[in-house]
């Protein structure tokens, strides 16, 4: 399954070394770039399967590199950033990054994020039924089952759950969710988002206080975890 190529764009030699060793020992091919320009060049000449992009680059900001890449490059981009600004991370996610890792991260976390980002087929939206451990969502008939019994969801709850589940493993920002579920005019009504997430958790989580499916990403948004989802295709 591997042999996929990952491009690491980071100006810190030690971080590149660490990422390279970690990824290579897990059978990924690694290409390194120390500057944003070099990174963009490599992507345009030999598009990798995934890009790990540091936000703090010396020549141009990671945000610019991201915007530049997203003009044509559609494979996953994972942001690697120094802990500090939730705003920065949310901005990168809204601009098309698939996921983020905060330095200092553990290598296990890195590999899990990479695997999850690479796993996703582009045609996710066409899957009629998906099973996420104890949860089954039938997108065609808009029904949700937990442990084989039907969960009654309101229209908004279903809309929220389906958008989260269709982006299994990916962080969706508050802004994005408000936009998608309530519409652009409700950008600032995050209190509804909080309330509906709480409602959803009560209905689909075994213990709503220890959620296993809908995870809070502090100050940024929510992440749905389907984990080893067994997808059924018709």
């Amino acid at each position: 399954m591997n042999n996929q190529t990952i491009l690491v764009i980071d100006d810190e030699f030690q971080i590149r070394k660490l990422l390279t060793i970690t990824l290579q020992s897990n059978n990924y091919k690694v290409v390194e770039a120390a500057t944003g320009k070099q990174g963009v060049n490599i992507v345009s000449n030999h598009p990798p399967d995934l890009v790990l992009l540091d936000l703090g680059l010396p020549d141009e900001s990671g945000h610019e590199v991201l915007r530049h890449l997203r003009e044509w490059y559609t494979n996953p981009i994972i942001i690697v950033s120094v802990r500090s600004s939730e705003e920065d991370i949310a901005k990168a996610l809204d601009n098309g990054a698939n996921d983020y890792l905060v330095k200092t991260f553990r290598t296990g976390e890195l590999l899990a994020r990479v695997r999850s980002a690479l796993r996703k087929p582009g045609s996710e939206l066409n899957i009629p039924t998906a099973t996420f451990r104890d949860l089954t969502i039938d997108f065609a008939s808009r029904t949700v089952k937990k442990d084989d019994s039907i969960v009654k969801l309101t229209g908004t709850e279903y809309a929220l759950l389906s958008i989260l589940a269709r982006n299994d493993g990916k962080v969706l920002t508050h802004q994005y969710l408000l936009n998608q579920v309530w519409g652009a005019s409700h950008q600032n009504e995050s209190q509804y988002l909080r309330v509906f997430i709480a409602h959803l958790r009560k209905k689909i989580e075994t213990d709503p206080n220890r959620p296993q499916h809908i995870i809070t990403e502090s100050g940024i948004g929510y992440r749905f975890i389907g984990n080893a989802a067994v997808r059924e295709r018709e």
Partner: protein
Amino acid sequence: MMGYRVVAFMLLMAVSILAMFLDIVPVLVAAFLSAVIWDFFFIPPTMTLTVGTPEDGLLLLMYFIVALINTVLTSKIRKMEKEVKAKDEKAKSVKFYNTLFNSLSHELHTPITTIIGCADNLQGNAPSLSEKNKTELVSEISVAAIRLNQQVENLLNMSRLESGILQVKKDWCDINDLVYKVLQRLEPNLSKYRIAVEIPDQLPLFRLDFGLMEQVIYNLLINVTQHTPEDTLITIQVDSQRDRLILVVADNGSGFPKKEIDKVFDKFYKLKGYATSGTGLGLSIVKGFVEAHQGSVKLENLPVKGSKFTIEIRTEKSYVNRLKNE
């Protein structure tokens, strides 16, 4: 009528008193003016600047010289006093910073020394090390690095606070989510403690900075685990009173020493007699982050056993969660 010589003494006294409070220049002016006034109004012939007798001329000259000496001496003494005080204060703060740097240096150097030492061993003596030794060294590096990371995190938070770049980004928060998120993060540290969470079912949403409040609760709980034995009961209570959020973290441990209870929020303060590692910044960050929300935090010992942190933050709340579910 009072003799004009007595007036000279009264004026001299006035100048001396001024010298105790004012700088040298205004006092010199006062000394000069008072000499002129004495001459003009009191030395016969009065209402002129002329002096009648040579004796009075001598008196006037002596008056002026005495006033001058008085002024200069007093101001010299005051200057010296100021210098001594400044020196004292400097010595005190040097002593304070020395203690602080010693402690900080220890906290940072211990894990760094461990990491470098273990790495050296792995590099230099690799062939002679048993597999078990290697595993141990690697695990020491890991533990030390995590510890170092925590200290750096604390220092960075503190400098965010002190530099004034800290921005409170308030958004609607589900307090349940907040509290349980921290508890989940701290699961490995809290596994041997008993935890009781008391949050009312219909608690409104509050506008807070989720990330900062997460750090506040995290630091409070870490603090409890550092100062109480395993199996201690930790209670987290949240309530809404009028326009306020009340958050309580209490434990039934041994409480704080009375003498030190007021100091625990001070920067770099560490309780005496506890061997716990730490920069002494955890609780001052709690205080800083809460105050950044215009809130307050207080600590008290409980009457029977244990201690209790109470956080009060005045902020907007929303009851949309009480609306019927569509």
